[in-house]
């Protein structure tokens, strides 16, 4: 199974992949589209998003989505509102 871009996310990613691959062949293709791997996916995505931010790939992806949007599920919010408001650390300046 393939690794994640973030080393620390690889285990949870592979757990998710296993779940998805079984679900795809055994449920989805047989007409049952009810989700089964969401918990794993959200855990994996939490980990992944932090890594993407660290690597500054989140902005690259946001730009790519402007040109070629990825349609949202009707349940999720329409804009990927990332954490742009967190300016929590004011560095103390000493001259």
């Amino acid at each position, binding site marked *: 199974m393939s690794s994640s871009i973030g080393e620390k996310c690889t285990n949870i990613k592979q757990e998710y992949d296993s779940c998805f691959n079984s679900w795809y062949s055994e449920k989805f293709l047989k007409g049952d589209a009810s989700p089964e791997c969401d918990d794993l996916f959200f855990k*994996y995505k939490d980990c992944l998003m932090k890594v993407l931010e660290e690597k500054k790939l989140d902005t690259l992806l946001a730009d790519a989505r402007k040109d070629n949007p990825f349609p949202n599920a009707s349940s999720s919010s329409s804009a990927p509102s990332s954490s742009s408001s967190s300016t929590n650390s004011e560095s103390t300046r000493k001259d």
Partner: protein
Amino acid sequence: MKFFQATHKFDHSWAQVTAANWMKYPNEQCPHVIAVDVLDRHVDPETGVLRTERLLTCNQNAPALVLKFLGGSTLSYVRETSELDPKTKKLTMRTQNLSMCNVLIINETVTYTVNPQDESSTMFKQEAQIVAGSALSRFSSYVEDFCLTRFRDNAAVGRAGFEMVLEKFKAASHEATSQLEKATVATAAAAAVNAAGASL
């Protein structure tokens, strides 16, 4: 701008081909694809279409000096979006490189559909558009020709590799998913489909 187009028939069912497609990496024929991440995935509640957005992380093959000259890093990134309709049995995957866009832009679209003449096989169609980026505009014709040739070679290798994956997949199709994954890992895969853009 250059265009590349190829079609191929896989002697495997659409279900097998699309299931194997999710497990394509890692594999020996595409060692440069070092990570595959799922950014988003959902089933559209109205249409039943499975949508997936993935990020492929690749090692650049280009010599270090070239990368330095072009200002690129040793890693490159490819974004892939796909739509899979289980009713019409069509999988469409679109990829574009996210890095080195000032050098080269490759837009690729791949579809897998059931062969209307023989439902036990799958039709594969691949189209790519290759555009030299601004950094190389003076040499665009040369660069595009070079990349087109390279893309074509990769595509052929990739299809042959994916055939091998499918053979193993078929043999193991009644076993556990983990077994299938091992079979996939052990052989090759459709390099061109996702990785050609990244490998350039």
